[in-house]
C-alpha cells in the first residue's frame, strides 16, 4: 500500500496561487478526503499527486521515492474523474478490461481481474450492457472498476460522485469505501460534499485559499475543530462574537451580547480577559429546555423560523439579548411542540461549545465560502 508525502508544494496560475506551500502525508492504506470551497486548490492538489499538474516548487514522494519529475503514466496511480469517460461502443466488461489489454495482458489473465472487479461492485449482471444502457451510478462504478483493474494501488478520486443524484451518491460512497479497504488501496478523494467526506474518510484535509487549514479524523474535526473555518465548513454551526470575561480552572467565561456563558477551556489557546473571541455551537447541540428556572448557559428567546428536515426540525431562535441561534431537534413522526412565535429557553451545553480567537480580518470574511 503506497504512502504519499508532499513537501512545500506551490502552484500558481498567473496571479492566482492554487497551492501555497502545501505539506502533507498520506498514510499507507488510508482513505483520505480533501474538502474545501470552490477554488480552494483541492483539485490542483490531487492533480499534482497524479502528475497531471506540475507544481512550481516543492517535492512529491510516493513510497519514499521522489516522483516530482515523473509523468502521469510512470507514477502508478489510478485517476477517476467526475466526468465519466467510458467508451460508448464497448460494453461494461470490455470497458473494464481495456486497461489490461493495453498492458498486453492475456485474455485469460484479464478475465479473472475484470470479473473480480465487477463482482466487488455488484456489476456482474450488467457486464454485457453498453454505457448508454446504464444508470449514472452504474456508469461511474464501471469507470471505477476500469481504473482499479489496471492494478493501481493508489487511487485518486476527483469528485467521483459529483455528477450523480443525491440518493445514488449516498449509496455508492459506502461501496467505494468498502472496496478500497477490501483491496487494501490508498485512496485520496476530493469532494465538495462534507457529509460524503465525514462518512467515508479516515482523515479529512480542509483547504481554503490554497492552504491546508486543518487535518484530522472526521469526528475530531467535526466535534473539536481547532479552526473557525473548519467549524464553518464541516457541518453547520452558530457563531457568536463574544468577549472573554475570565478563565477559571477548566472553564472560560465569555460575554455574549450581555449574557455570560461558560465554555470548556482550550489548552492550546491563550485568551486574555477583555479579548474579543468567537464562540460556536452546532445546531443539534442546542437544546430546548422547559420551565423558566434560570440555568447555566441558558438563554431565553422567541422562535422566529421553523423548518422541517424529515428526521429533524430546525428552529431559528432570537434571544432576548439579540443573538440569533439555529437549533435542530430530532422529531421522528411527531407533530412539533414548538412553533413560530413561541417563547423558549435554549441551553448551550458547555462541553459542546467551541471557542476561537477573533479573526483579524473580521468574522464574516473568515467564514465566507466564496
Amino acid at each position, binding site marked *: 500500500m503506497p504512502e504519499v508525502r508532499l513537501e512545500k508544494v506551490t502552484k500558481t496560475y498567473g496571479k492566482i496561487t492554487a497551492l501555497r506551500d502545501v505539506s502533507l502525508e498520506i498514510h499507507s492504506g488510508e482513505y483520505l478526503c480533501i474538502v474545501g470551497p470552490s477554488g480552494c486548490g483541492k483539485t490542483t492538489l490531487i492533480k499534482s499527486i497524479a502528475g497531471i499538474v506540475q507544481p512550481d516548487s516543492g517535492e512529491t514522494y510516493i513510497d519514499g521515492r521522489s516522483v516530482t519529475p515523473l509523468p502521469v503514466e510512470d507514477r502508478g496511480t489510478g485517476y477517476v474523474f467526475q466526468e465519466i469517460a467510458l467508451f460508448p461502443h464497448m460494453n461494461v466488461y470490455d470497458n473494464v478490461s481495456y486497461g489490461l489489454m493495453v498492458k498486453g495482458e492475456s485474455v485469460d489473465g484479464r478475465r479473472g481481474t475484470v470479473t473480480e472487479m465487477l463482482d466487488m461492485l455488484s456489476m456482474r449482471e450488467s457486464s454485457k450492457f453498453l454505457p448508454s444502457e446504464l444508470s449514472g451510478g452504474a456508469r461511474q462504478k464501471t469507470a471505477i472498476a476500469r481504473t482499479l483493474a489496471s492494478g493501481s494501488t493508489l487511487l485518486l478520486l476527483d469528485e467521483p460522485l459529483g455528477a450523480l*443524484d*443525491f440518493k445514488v451518491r449516498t449509496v455508492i460512497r459506502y461501496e467505494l469505501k468498502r472496496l478500497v479497504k477490501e483491496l487494501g488501496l490508498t485512496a485520496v478523494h476530493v469532494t*465538495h*460534499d462534507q457529509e460524503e467526506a465525514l462518512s467515508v474518510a479516515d482523515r479529512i484535509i480542509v483547504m481554503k485559499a490554497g492552504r491546508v487549514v486543518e487535518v484530522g479524523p472526521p469526528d475530531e474535526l467535526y466535534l473539536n475543530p481547532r479552526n473557525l473555518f473548519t467549524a464553518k465548513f464541516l457541518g453547520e454551526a452558530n457563531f457568536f462574537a463574544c468577549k472573554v470575561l475570565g478563565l477559571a480552572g477548566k472553564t472560560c467565561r465569555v460575554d455574549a451580547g450581555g449574557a455570560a456563558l461558560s465554555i470548556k477551556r482550550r489548552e492550546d489557546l491563550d485568551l486574555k480577559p477583555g479579548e474579543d473571541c468567537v464562540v460556536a455551537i452546532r445546531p443539534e447541540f442546542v437544546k430546548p429546555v422547559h420551565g423558566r428556572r434560570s440555568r447555566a448557559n441558558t438563554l431565553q428567546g422567541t422562535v422566529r423560523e421553523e423548518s422541517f428536515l424529515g428526521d429533524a426540525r430546525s428552529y431559528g431562535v432570537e434571544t432576548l439579548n439579540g443573538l440569533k441561534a439555529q437549533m435542530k431537534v430530532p422529531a421522528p413522526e411527531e407533530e412539533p411542540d414548538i412553533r413560530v412565535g413561541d417563547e423558549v429557553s435554549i441551553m448551550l451545553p458547555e462541553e459542546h461549545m467551541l471557542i476561537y480567537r477573533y479573526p483579524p480580518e473580521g468574522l464574516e470574511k473568515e467564514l465566507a465560502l466564496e
Partner: protein
Amino acid sequence: MEDVTFEVKDGEYICVLGSTGSGKTTLLRLIAGIIKPNEGEIFIEDKMVNDIPAEERNAVYVPQTYALFPHMTILENVMFGPMARQVPTKEASEAAMRVLKLVRLDHRADAFPNELSGGMQQRVALARGLAPGFKLLLLDEPLGALDARLRLELRGELRRLAKESGLTVIHVTHDQEEAMTVADRILVLRMGRVQQHGTPFHVYNRPENLFVANFVGRTNFLEGIVEARNREKSTVKIRGNLSVDVADTSHEDEEDVIVAVREENTFLTGDDPGEGRNVLDGEVTQVYFLGAYIRLEVRLRNGDIVSSLMPTDILLGKFRVGDRVWVSFYPRSTLVYDYPTLGLRHELEAY
C-alpha cells in the same frame, strides 16, 4: 411524462423531486412552453396555455446551466430581459437593481460575470429571471452547480426571496433535503409519473409507496409475510423465523409484504430494551460518522442488514464494529407495503 395532473396555488413554493430521467425537467419545460404535450392541458391562472407561446406565458424559466453574457456587466445582464420587452432604460435599470438587492448582489452591479464566484453567478441568473417581473418562476436545479456547503446556505435564501416577492415557484431538484427545506409541497416523480404530492411532513412520514419511502429519507426494508392480525396490529414473519409487530392491519394473512422503518426510528441499545417494541439482536458491522448523526449498520441473526441513525451526542463512542447490540423499533413507526411484483430491489431503483 405520463398522465400528470397537479395544481400549484398562487404564491406556493413547489418542489418537483426525482432522479435523473424522471421527467422533472420535461415537466418544467412543458409549463414554460418550450415543449408541447402530446395530450393534456396546462392552465396558468385559469387560462389554457397549450397554444400560447413561451414568451407570452407570464412565466420565466431559469435553466440549469445559466449562460450570462460575458461581455456585459452584472447590471446589464439583469436589465437584458426588461429591455428586450421594450421597458425604458431607466425603469429597466431600477428593476434590475431591485432584484440584485434581493439576491444581495447590488454591490457587484458593475462587475463582469468572470469576476464573480459560481454561487454569485447563480444568483445573477436568478436575478435575471426575476427582473421582468413575472410571478411564476420555473427553476431547473437552481443550486445544482454549486458546492454542497454553499447550496445549504443559498436554499434558505431562495425560499425567503420567493416569499418576500410573492412569487409562485416550481423548483426541480434531485436533492430531497433541499426539497424538504424549501417547499410548501413536494411532487415526487418517477419515470414520468407522479408518485406522491403533499407537504414535506406528509411525504416524509406517510410515503405512499416503496419508491417514495426509499427516495425520501433513509429507510430500512424487511421482507416478510403476514402471519397473524387483530384489530390493532399485525405480526409479520421475516427471514430466519423472526417476527415483528406492525401497526398496519390492511394486509391479509399470508400476504407477502415489505415492512419499512426509518433509520432514525430504529434504536440501538447494549441490552434488551424490553416490551412494547420490536427487538432484534445482531452485530455491528459498520460505523459511519455523519457529523450531526452517527449511522450504524447491524447484521441481524437472520443475515438482514439494518441501519440506525442516531444523534451524535447520544451515540458517540458507544458502539464499535463487532459489538453485540439490540435493535428496536415501535410497531407505530413502521409502514407496510405490498411486496412488489418485480422484487424489492427493482422497485427501489429510481433510475
